[in-house]
């Protein structure tokens, strides 16, 4: 892990560096002003005061995130319709899809919970993946950023804590043990899709360095092209 303080920016081999000159950044959690060193792919920059990771560029992360995000969108739509859990007792059986889980709260005055559950386990993860695709595809294929790409990425970042797919997966396991005594329960195909989905979303999160995305958006946008001007002067 590279500390951001007082390092000369030209230490790493030029070939693997992210093409960005040293810039001042402000740690979002403790407000320390740091100089961002030039990072090689795979290196992390952490705030020297509080340890918050400020940047963590990964090799070919953009392409990986695009494929992972696309795969998780497909899985997310598929899980909606396939049975998630199947229950049977004394000859009666019932199969539940994720859609049924969401609609479980429609009866009675608990409709507020429907919206919330649907949002946290389906809508927000889907929206985040869609936004990431919208922002990253032009960046990876070297075309100008789409309209409102900045706002889209900001929204994706702010929605991060509200995306609760992994919590729902653990909830499934707990629910399973709770009804174990009552009836016989089996996982449906959608459960395994959902499990893979959780892993994919985690992998997207591991590869995503928001600092690099902001840099790329800034460089590709019409506002200021700091990369070009710096490079031509050098």
């Amino acid at each position, binding site marked *: 892990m590279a500390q951001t303080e007082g390092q000369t920016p030209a230490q790493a081999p030029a070939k693997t560096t992210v093409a960005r000159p040293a810039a001042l950044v402000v740690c979002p959690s403790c407000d320390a002003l740091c100089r961002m060193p030039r990072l090689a792919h795979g290196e992390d920059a952490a705030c020297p005061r509080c340890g918050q990771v400020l940047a963590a560029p990964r090799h070919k992360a953009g392409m990986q995130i695009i494929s992972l995000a696309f795969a998780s969108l497909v899985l997310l739509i598929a899980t909606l319709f396939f049975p998630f859990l199947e229950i049977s007792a004394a000859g009666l059986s019932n199969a539940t899809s994720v859609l049924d889980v969401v609609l479980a*709260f429609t009866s009675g005055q608990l409709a507020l919970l429907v919206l919330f559950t649907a949002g946290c*386990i389906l809508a927000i993860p889907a929206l985040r993946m869609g936004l990431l695709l919208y922002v990253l595809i032009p960046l990876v294929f070297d075309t100008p950023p789409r309209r409102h790409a900045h706002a889209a990425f900001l929204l994706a970042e702010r929605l991060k804590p509200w995306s609760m797919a992994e919590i*729902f997966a653990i909830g499934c396991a707990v629910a399973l043990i709770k009804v174990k005594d009552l009836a016989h329960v089996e996982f449906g195909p959608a459960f395994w899709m959902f499990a893979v989905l959780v892993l994919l979303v985690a992998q997207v999160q591991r590869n995503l360095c928001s600092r690099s995305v902001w840099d790329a958006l800034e460089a590709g946008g019409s506002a200021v092209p700091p990369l070009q001007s710096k490079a031509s002067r050098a």
Partner: protein
Amino acid sequence: MVGCRYCTRAWPAGTESCGVCGSKLVSRDRQSLQKVWAWWLVALLCYIPANLYPMLRTSTLGSVSQDTIVGGAITLAEHGSYVVAAIILLASVVIPTLKFLAIAYLAVSVSRPSSASQHTRHILYEVVEYIGRWSMIDVFVVAILSALVHLGSIASIEPGPASLTFALTVVFTMISAQSFDSRLIWDQLDDDQEKDPIRAD
């Protein structure tokens, strides 16, 4: 200098919105503590009915039982599922309670001299932010169970009113933790504690 909390870019003091990501720039959120306490209080009010009312209404072969959060965990433990009972107790009782205490402690500690170091409190804040979402587990369990267990007269499960108030508790404590401006923790640095070498930039 003022920094953007979303894209970490530094701007000259007085800049109103970030030129990279467009979010509003504030050196310190002056109303941060007010917001924290407001959401904290609402969450606490929701937490009381969440514990008093039933979370689940289970009917099996004609008999109906209603379980509160703690009651449900006790039933599970009586059936021998100690691990699941522990998970439920941890996610729905221990974590929310500790979270209420931790947020209150952080909010109090930034407005008066505190004995705990900045680092300890910073870690506490990160833990609170990270772990808070996991309390939703009980709400999801109720959702799954009530969707799944519809076996006519043999067994059926319905959500109780506490599922809504508990979900609201989790949401409000999450918003309360997010409203806390963690930069306030670091404002109390004494000069001799100041270890940051490039602050002078």
